């Protein structure tokens, strides 16, 4: 490395966050924008490093990285090209428009809304989403709103145990195609699926990712618990317009599925099965009809009720329940 590179010990004096903040302050204080040269020569953090011999090239690279970091934090850095030579970035000016940076002042929150938001921010057991929610709440809180009586008596929780959630959320935000190994029940080995992820949906306590399977160009919903390996976010991007209303479509898809698939069950009255299933079902001539989304997950539940429920129809569900009961008997039936 050249001697004048940033590895020089002088560079360590200013913490990177100081430089980032000085940059934001400088870019917000200007209306017409600052050129890169002005920034590198006057904003504290760059200026000192330039003074102590860092090369222009190294400073420019640092500036590029800082811009990326700030944009990732949601700071809108606008590039105003030179009118005569729009492609020449040497003359470009940079600024942060306050109107896009700041929470719009016309968005106001009532004390009642803040109380509900407080409750909403507390639902995440998972650390990074919990931190995101708290951070968002803090920004809204600094608008200086008085808070209503907190909503007491409730502790709603969203649990999240799938490692695939975070990369999929990132892929959705960035509109990038993602791949993951997906193991269908009954299959021996997982198959790699490639999707344009559009939404994540929790339905009946389980998380699903909804997207377009690029192999068949059709919308598909996948259970996160069946993703058995790392999610890869590719460089291939897709049109953000696909995301419009995707959450609603994902939910609609799951609800339609549940409407189309129903099981006919005979349930013994007064049992645990009766309590849990009657809430979800409608009475039929012979027993009750209960909608379900996934035959394997429903079979798990029905098998757990043992003799409390008998599956009449459909045969596939019936077979899955019998298979589970047989296997449970085989495993626990032998004397030890």
């Amino acid at each position, binding site marked *: 490395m050249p001697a004048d590179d940033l590895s020089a010990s002088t560079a360590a004096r200013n*913490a*990177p966050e*100081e430089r980032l903040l*000085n940059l*934001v*302050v400088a870019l917000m204080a200007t209306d017409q924008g600052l050129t890169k040269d*002005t920034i590198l020569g006057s904003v*504290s953090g760059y200026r000192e490093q330039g003074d102590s011999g860092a090369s222009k090239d190294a400073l420019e690279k640092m500036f590029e990285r800082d811009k990326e970091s700030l944009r990732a*934090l*949601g*700071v809108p850095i606008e590039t105003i090209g030179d009118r005569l030579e729009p492609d020449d970035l040497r003359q470009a000016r940079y600024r942060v428009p306050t109107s896009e940076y*700041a*929470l719009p002042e016309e968005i106001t*929150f009532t004390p009642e809304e803040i109380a*509900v938001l407080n*409750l909403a*921010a507390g639902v995440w057991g998972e650390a990074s989403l919990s*931190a995101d*929610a708290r951070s*968002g709440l*803090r920004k*809204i809180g*600094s608008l*200086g709103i008085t808070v209503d009586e907190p909503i*007491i*008596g*409730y*502790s*709603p*929780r*969203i649990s999240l145990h799938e490692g695939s959630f975070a990369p999929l*959320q990132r892929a*959705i*935000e960035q509109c990038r195609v993602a791949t993951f190994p997906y193991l269908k029940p009954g299959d021996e080995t997982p198959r790699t699926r490639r999707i344009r992820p*559009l*939404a*994540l*949906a929790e339905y*009946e306590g389980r998380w699903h990712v909804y997207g377009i399977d690029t192999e068949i160009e059709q919308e598909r919903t996948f259970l996160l*618990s069946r993703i058995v390996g790392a999610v890869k976010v590719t460089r291939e991007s897709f049109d*953000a317009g696909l*995301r419009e209303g995707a*959450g609603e479509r994902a939910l609609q898809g799951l609800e339609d599925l549940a409407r189309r698939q129903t099981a006919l069950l005979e349930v*013994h009255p007064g049992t*645990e099965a009766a*309590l*849990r299933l009657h809430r979800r079902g409608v009475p039929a001539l012979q027993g009750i009809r209960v909608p379900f989304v996934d035959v394997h997950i429903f079979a798990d539940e029905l*098998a757990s009720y*043992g*003799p409390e429920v008998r599956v009449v129809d459909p045969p596939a569900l019936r077979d899955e329940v*019998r298979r*589970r*009961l*047989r*296997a*449970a008997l*085989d495993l*626990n*039936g032998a004397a*030890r």
Partner: protein
Amino acid sequence: MTPGARPVLATERAALMLQLVPYLISKGEVTVAEAAADFDVSETQMRAMVEKLTVIGRPGDAGYWQMANDLFDIDWDLLDEHDRISLTNAVGLEHAPRLTAREAAALLAGLQLARSLPGVGESGVIAGLLAKLARGASSAPADLIVAPEPVDDVRGSVDEALRRGVAVSFTYKAPDAPATTRTVDPVKVHIADGQWYLQGWCHLRQAMRTFHLDRVSDLALTDIAITHGEEQPPALFDMGETGNIVRIRFPDAVAPLLRGYLDRAQETIAHGDLTVAAIRVADPTSLKRLAAGRGGEVEILEPGGAREAAADWARAGLEQYTDTGAPERGGEDAPAPEG
């Protein structure tokens, strides 16, 4: 979150400090402790952030160092002597930043769950908030959807009891136990994995108890004012030292599906790709349901009674499917309700 337990990266520190200025302005004056708690950092970290703020400012005119009034400043005496923070000069960043896509997404999903609470969903508050958050985000948040659940009579009545501060009475039917009539001072409603639980002081048991709301029927409000509302509820599935130890064996791959049980595990030992876990449950035979539901994956090792119960349970279930015309209804598959 435990304050200060989180390591904070430079960009995260920058993000926090962007929030710190509008926060301090809105507070006027605040203790280091309160600010640290609000920002989920330690007091040492908060102090360092505030001190660092005072070297941030507008660029000086080219070639000149910044003037004092170009920098943020605080009341140093107040900080040093009274552990209180007060901003005395601000040179920008007065506005709260927009929410990032992730912040908005995390709050939006939380709001969807809050929508299923009685009294919240119908009020129109949620719809307004969803729109405001979407507008207040710097870029489009990923759609994180939480399917809505209808408010049924039981949930609605429990809500009313919580608001009015009166006990409720109901019939409770725990699995494999006879139905009992309970009078309960409601303390908290827990919603986890789509299941609703009422935690409260049970007049019958003279202790805090947790009730799955699906198993509650004939619920009515009483005139009895609650007397144990201030009681600190235990963790949702905390068994304390009561109950019995059951040893189960299962393939490692199944472990995520047994989370609810393994959270209560006393110890887990790996044997090759199998795990043996000792868990504490009120009634060891109740694990027959787990063994049947995870058919062939969960083996109950001991006590022997629980293992036998699991085998009997699966056998009785299986015997319903003799498939010779009408299903047999022997004595075996009629579950006898016993305590």
